[in-house]
């Protein structure tokens, strides 16, 4: 490949990688916010879906910016629901996550049909004016850096890390741990909702059934591979995005099957979980007494 040819291959690849990685970074930050305060979050998928749908629904009515606001609000409510279910109902974190994912999937498809659809299938709702993806990409990358600074260099970050390691000890140190958890889960929902809004309002400009299609779980994978740190997670998410982009670029052209490229995040995560290198926060998943 000559120089210009290589550039012609790499440049769109890089752009596409960033576009694929953006929702992963946003949702991954949401995963960190939740898991760092001790709440297992396999509900990222559902939070993103709820955000994507509400963003598009509100966006159609009042413009895309209002849509983003709606996505973020709904995401936050879902995040707080997860907290409420695990703390007050004392639901197992996994059970609550599964329930939220199912509810989000089925209620968005239900509402999509009820509110927007005439034909079946395909069912989808569109929006005319889309937001620039670069806006979200820049925001996501900036947030990753900001979260790193917050986590390691601010009082809130110290409290978040402490709560995730041992809520009991943190309470004994005089910290209002319930508030820290609330902040964490609200932020988790906001970020996942934002990731959803990116998908529906910026990347494709429509909502279709199950459009998040597993990105929430890949974001969770990025959290695990990135050892629950914002920068590590962002690096993993960018790598996953690059594999995704590569697979689109290579589609049909090379012997390398797309399935293999798509599988890389999953394989990487199983290996990471096996190596035990990424130590999760010590109090992660602890049930309220």
């Amino acid at each position, binding site marked *: 490949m000559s120089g210009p040819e290589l550039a012609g291959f790499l440049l769109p690849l890089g752009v596409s990688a960033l576009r694929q990685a953006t929702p992963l970074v946003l949702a991954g930050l949401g995963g960190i916010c939740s898991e760092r305060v001790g709440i*297992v979050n*396999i509900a990222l998928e559902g939070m993103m879906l709820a955000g994507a749908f509400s963003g598009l629904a509100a966006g159609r009515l009042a413009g895309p910016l209002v849509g983003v606001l709606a996505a973020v609000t709904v995401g936050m409510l879902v995040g707080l629901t997860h907290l409420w*279910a695990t703390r007050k*109902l*004392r*639901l*197992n974190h*996994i*059970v*609550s996550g*599964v*329930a*939220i*994912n*199912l*509810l989000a*999937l*089925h*209620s968005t*498809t*239900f*509402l999509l*049909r*009820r*509110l927007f659809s005439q034909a079946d299938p395909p069912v989808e709702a569109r929006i005319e004016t889309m937001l620039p993806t670069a806006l979200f990409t820049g925001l996501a990358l900036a947030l990753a850096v900001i979260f790193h600074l917050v986590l390691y260099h601010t009082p809130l970050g110290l409290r978040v890390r402490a709560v995730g390691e041992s809520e009991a000890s943190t309470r004994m140190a005089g910290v209002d741990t319930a508030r820290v958890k609330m902040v964490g889960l609200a932020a988790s929902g906001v970020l996942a909702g934002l990731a959803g809004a990116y998908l529906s309002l910026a990347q494709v400009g429509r909502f279709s059934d199950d459009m998040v299609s*597993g990105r929430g*779980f890949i974001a*969770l*994978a990025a959290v*695990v591979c990135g050892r629950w740190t914002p920068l590590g997670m962002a690096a993993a998410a960018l790598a996953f995005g690059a594999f995704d982009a590569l697979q689109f670029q290579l589609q049909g052209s090379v012997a390398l*099957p797309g*399935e*293999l490229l*798509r*599988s890389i*995040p*999953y*394989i990487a*995560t*199983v290996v990471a*979980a*096996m*190596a*035990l290198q990424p130590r*999760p926060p010590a109090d992660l998943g602890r*049930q309220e*007494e």
Partner: protein
Amino acid sequence: MILRRLAPAVQPLLSVVGAFVIAGVVVWACGGSPLEALTALVQGSCGSSTGLLRTLSKATPLLLSGLAVAVALRAGLFNIGAEGQLILGALAAAWAGHAFTGLPAWIHIPVCLAAGVFVGALWAAIPGALRAWRGSHEVIVTIMLNYLAIQLAHFLVNGAMKDPVSMAPATSMVEPSARLWAAADGSNFSAGFGLAVLAAVGVAVLLRHTALGFEIRAVGLGADAARVAGVNVGRTMISAMAISGGLAGLAGAIEVLGVHRRYLDAFSPGYGFDSIAVALLGGGGALGVTLSSLLFGGLSAGATHMEAWTHVPRQIAGIVQGVVIFSAGARYLKGRRR
């Protein structure tokens, strides 16, 4: 005495009723008639013999994968990976169904079922072993293995295992000798339902009457006490996951041999995920799981009918499921702590 035996059923029943009420409110809020919708739902699921058979056919994979989740749950493990195990089990059965020719049905069918069970068990033993040996959380690993299974199956049925004469991403049809008996009325009801009920009986016997089942329950309720008493906790976890995966694999195999007659890419509408709701509502016991699979099977069968007659989208059934997990899950896990 009778009251005491019924007591465990009270909360699941209440949570189901509650879920229906909430779904009714949703239907009403969206301008539908809850009563009409409910009537159509009941009509579709048990108003006719075809409806009834459809309910049973929908319940079959739910029952088996629900048992799968339940067995793991009894060992204190969350098998979120039933979907992946089911997919690979189905693929294995489809392969055995057309790769072996000239076998009599009484050999061919068991061979295909065994292939599904074996592959499902193997796939589920991976997270079990990683949990036992490395302490890796089974939830993360099973989620990832689900997606890996989906990609793997996708790859195979578009390549090496693809039916050369078909356009669809699917394997060749299985030999007639590998097909389960099925009703001809379009209900998709097959002998697989009987196999699923047998499996439920088997799980009940396993959990109540065998040493392995005893160990599984001991590890689930008190892993430390079990370890101190000499139970090999790691091996028990792996066994439980393997049995769980075998049941999910069986579910996939039966879908292939009884309904689709071949492996069709993306044939599962998420049985493996719905099974979590089935297991939680059923309280992790074989009888409870059977009853809750019938409920969800009926819901699924009736929802299509309801959608056709009342224009209430059938996804309302999924909303009922989600609410049930919330309320029934609170019940199941409250009494125990890890």
